[in-house]
């Protein structure tokens, strides 16, 4: 039996490692790369540690070019702006290589943040290593940490990217309410279709 399991293992690993360099961050994990400085759209360098909130911290991997990020953008901005006032630190991170997705360059990011009224920072993950450390794979993909800095929610904004009016489960909003109120998050991990992050090589 042991021999058989060992034989099978490399195949399983090959399949798993193909998905992400290290797999997505596990629930309960601390904020990875929290001290890495990233350039914000206001020109200042900022780390996730610097935006940490008293009640929790929301890290959103998003971008300008992805149609799915755009579909959820209004909701992301509303939630980010709203919960920033409720003790949640909020930061949007763009890890895409602008050589692959030119719309994700710094200037288009500045324009986007202004145009859409981001009240929270929108920073450049200039090596894509922050996204790698999170095991983020797509945009949009959100990670919510509680006030102790432990990951309590990871995944989608809600269950309907196409139509905000038809959302059944507002996963991120529910998780934010729970974290802001010091309660347990109802659904901790979800998925959605999205754009693959264009990692810098």
């Amino acid at each position, binding site marked *: 039996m042991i021999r058989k399991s060992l034989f099978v293992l490399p195949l399983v690993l090959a399949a798993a490692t193909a998905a992400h360099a290290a797999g997505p961050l596990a629930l309960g994990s601390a904020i990875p790369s929290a001290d890495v400085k990233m350039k914000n759209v206001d020109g200042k360098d900022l780390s996730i540690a610097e935006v940490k909130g008293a009640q929790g911290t929301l890290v959103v991997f998003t971008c300008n070019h992805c149609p799915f990020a755009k579909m959820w953008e209004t909701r992301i901005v509303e939630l980010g702006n709203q919960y920033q006032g409720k003790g949640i630190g909020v930061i949007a991170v763009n890890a895409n290589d602008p050589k692959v997705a030119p719309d994700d360059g710094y200037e288009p990011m500045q324009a986007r943040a202004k145009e859409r009224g981001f009240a929270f920072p929108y920073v450049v993950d200039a090596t894509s290593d922050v996204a790698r450390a999170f095991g983020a794979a797509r945009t949009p993909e959100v990670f919510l940490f509680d006030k102790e800095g432990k990951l309590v929610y990871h995944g*989608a904004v809600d269950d*309907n990217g196409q139509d905000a009016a038809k959302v059944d489960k507002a996963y991120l909003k529910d998780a934010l309410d729970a974290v802001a109120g010091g309660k347990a998050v109802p659904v901790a991990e979800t*998925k959605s279709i999205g754009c693959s992050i264009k990692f810098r090589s």
Partner: protein
Amino acid sequence: MPSAIPLLVLVLAAAKAPLPTPADAAAVHAEIGRPGASAVLVNIWATWCAPCREEFPDLLHVARELKGKGLRTVLVSADFQGEEAGARDFLSEQGVDFGTFIRTGKDEDFVNGMHGEWSGALPATFVYDGSGRLVRFWEGKASYPVLKKRVQEAIARKETP
């Protein structure tokens, strides 16, 4: 034959890809598991996904080249329901002449139903061997030589179980 050219244009214009069939993850798995293939190449794409569109010619190149070796290619559009026509236009442009799918239902059910390791990022490609076992899975586009090698490895696994 002055009428030959307009006729040819007409025939080409009429050579539309079949409209993608709505399918949930279970229906896609049923197609993967249907006996008779030496390997199954599954690609999940969308009209709005630039890297998906970029890799499509390479994907179809491999699909056509290895069809004779028993490869079954399963294309699944992740476009929304109601966007079948747009998906078909792209498939037609690419010269797809076989049946394909368009996913139905909630993202979460579809993504987890396809494979637990899949984050939902597009494109997503799965390569199964002839017995329906997953051999390779990755997110993001792959080039023709990479695609071909991975499919050939899956076909070869049939001979060395």
